[in-house]
């Protein structure tokens, strides 16, 4: 035990004392925050400038209503839309279209909208543009035209104008997630729920890849600098392997703790932003069960992958070989993110449940599912058992390969050779 602690302490100090640890610990949250906030900045910006376009009316008789509806202003007082209104008729439209399309093509006109004479009956209008344009902009124009037409139809039924507004207001179907024993949690909106699920998987992904690769390189370097020979004359390969995994894990926990402190202080300052408070509401809504299973699968996932990286570290001898292994492991970790949209809609689909019992997928799949739904405790327990068995099996195999691999230099072993190593006495 004394020796194991010595190894753990050395590995821990080596990482924590590095400048890159401090820099990474400080910069990663900033990077994460940038990723979260930058898109919201872009979304806000898009609506800031007025939208300019031409509206061609072919005799709907609604021009004044359109003028009123498009007359809204931005928060800063500027008009939201700058519209050029043209009255035309079905006979002249081809000539006009040719002229306007030329302007669109030359870029002097963003786009133009044609309101047909019978829009009230058909509910059909056309927009001519060179590119699709911003989703939000198009939606707001569509909604505005739609509002004018719907109100016009209603007024034909002699509904008083002041009641039309009230009658046409949309309803909001709020999502409340139901769990066993009448438990419920607010689901937040679609986007924040999706993003927070991804965020938890990303935390696991970056930790495993960051620390795992470090472990792999550290073992490779000890091989290449031949210090391994000295180490194994004092320690068992198992002590060395476990010491490295645990020492790194301890450094990881230190980093997480620092992030938790940093993160909570950042949230305190930035809590006023709508997006952050949405994320926070979503996080609060996740039950204590979720956080317990997150921690369990985080730790188990770290151990499983760290063991795998230790195994790989003992058989590689160059940076190029390291890269060859990093790519497939990244793929394995990314699979749940690719499936995230589907999992969010069907977190209990039988094949999703089955996939979440595949050892290297279990941690990410379980964390993702648990952030979207109430995963039954039985499934969590099966997942944990699967992980523990996998870690023990892989650990036993790794210890045997590690023992031989760390003293083998040069050519990377083939799979049959690895099998032989496992069998060595």
């Amino acid at each position, binding site marked *: 035990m*004394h*020796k194991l602690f*010595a*190894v753990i302490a*050395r590995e821990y100090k*080596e990482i924590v004392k590095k400048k890159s640890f401090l820099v990474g610990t400080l910069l990663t949250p900033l990077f994460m925050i940038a990723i979260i906030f930058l898109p919201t900045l872009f979304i806000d910006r898009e609506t800031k400038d007025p939208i300019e376009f031409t509206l061609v009316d072919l005799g709907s008789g609604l021009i004044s209503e359109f003028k009123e509806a498009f007359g809204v202003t931005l928060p800063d007082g500027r008009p939201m839309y700058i519209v050029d209104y043209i009255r035309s008729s079905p006979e002249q439209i081809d000539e006009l279209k040719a002229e306007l399309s030329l302007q669109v093509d030359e870029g002097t006109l963003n786009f133009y909208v044609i309101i047909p004479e019978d829009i009230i009956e058909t509910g059909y209008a056309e927009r001519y543009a060179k590119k699709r344009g911003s989703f939000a902009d198009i939606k707001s124009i569509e909604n505005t035209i739609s509002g004018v037409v719907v109100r016009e139809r209603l007024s034909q039924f002699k509904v008083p104008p002041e009641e039309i507004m009230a009658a046409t207001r949309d309803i909001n179907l709020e999502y409340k997630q139901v769990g066993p024993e009448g438990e419920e949690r607010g689901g937040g909106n679609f986007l924040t729920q999706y993003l927070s699920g991804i965020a938890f998987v990303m935390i696991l992904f970056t930790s495993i890849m960051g620390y795992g690769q470090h472990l792999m390189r550290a073992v490779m370097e*000890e091989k290449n*600098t*031949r*210090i*391994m*020979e*000295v*180490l*194994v*004359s*004092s*320690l*068992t390969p198992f002590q060395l392997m476990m010491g490295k995994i645990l020492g790194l894990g301890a450094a990881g926990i230190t980093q997480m703790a620092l992030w938790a402190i940093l993160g909570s202080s950042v949230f305190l300052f930035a809590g006023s932003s709508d997006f952050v408070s949405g994320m926070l509401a979503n996080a609060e809504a996740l039950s204590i069960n979720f956080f317990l299973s997150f921690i369990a699968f985080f730790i188990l996932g770290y151990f499983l992958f760290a063991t795998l990286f230790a195994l790989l570290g003992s058989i590689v001898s160059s940076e190029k070989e390291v890269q060859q292994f990093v790519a497939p492991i990244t793929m394995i970790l990314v699979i749940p993110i690719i499936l995230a949209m589907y999992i969010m809609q069907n977190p209990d689909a039988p094949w999703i449940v089955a996939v979440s019992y595949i050892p290297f997928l279990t941690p990410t799949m379980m964390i993702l599912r648990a952030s979207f739904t109430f995963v039954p405790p039985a499934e969590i327990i099966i997942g944990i058992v699967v992980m523990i068995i996998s870690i023990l099996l892989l650990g036993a195999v790794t210890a045997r390969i590690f*023992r*031989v691999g760390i*003293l083998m230099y040069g050519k990377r072993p083939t799979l049959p*050779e690895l099998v*032989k190593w496992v069998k*060595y*006495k």
Partner: protein
Amino acid sequence: MAILKIDSVTKVFDRKVAVKNFSLEVQEGVIYGLLGPNGAGKTTTIRMVMNIIAPDEGRITVMGREMNEQAKDRIGFLPEERGLYQKMVVRDVLTYLGEIKGMKKPQIAGAIEEWLARVKLSECIDDKVEELSKGMQQKLQFASTLIHDPQLIMLDEPFSGLDPVNLELIKNIVLEQKRQGKTIIFSTHIMEQAEKLCDNICLINKGEKVLDGPLFEVKSKFGKNTVVLEFDGDISDLEGLPGVEKIYDYNKYVELKLHDGTSPHKVLESLIDKVELNRYEFMEPSLHDIFVDIVGEKKDAREEVSNA
């Protein structure tokens, strides 16, 4: 008492026999040379003694017990390929290597000062390993091997790459350890070193023991059958001398191995007519000649000499 006993040990790697039915008994307080060409099985043997790999057959006992993890703490091991943590400070490296040999921190601090003084590196205690020269790193590694005061010291090619001053320093520490009653086993393929230092030698070739025993016994077994000579003339003049089995050319001098029963006097007589002699000496064969004689061709022998 035998501090190390290797009993009929065999180790096979993937059909290649690394060590075959190898036995060795090392008494306490001797310097034992493990000699053999590259790939003979020296390193595999040492790794089995260090419990890094297990023998397929046979058993190894250290200090009267089956080799186990605790016994590792009483052995000091210098691997053939040297390596230390380059980014660590000298003090930390030695502390760590002491700790994983089971030493306690307060005990280590004293040992570090003592050993750094002995290898003349005291002023480097707070330097990073990578800041030291290659020779200094070698001395540091040597110190780290002995820092826990081991009973049994295993040195794999301890003298390779040392300059004469450091070689002398390390050699004196080895001799001092022997005087303190420690047992030293070292492997080398430089026979001159082995000849000067060893009490006993064991010669391995292709995984098998070919020679084992006290140095003087080994040499006397081969009898006085060697002539050393220096002369003016060409080596081709020596060819076809009666009674000469082999010629070892060392450039500055030549050794002749005589057939059993050949009189050295006869050889001298026939030489006088052929070349101008500066030196003629009749003696026991050098360990080098024995080694080459048993292990290989004359061609290899020249390579060994140039390596030395």
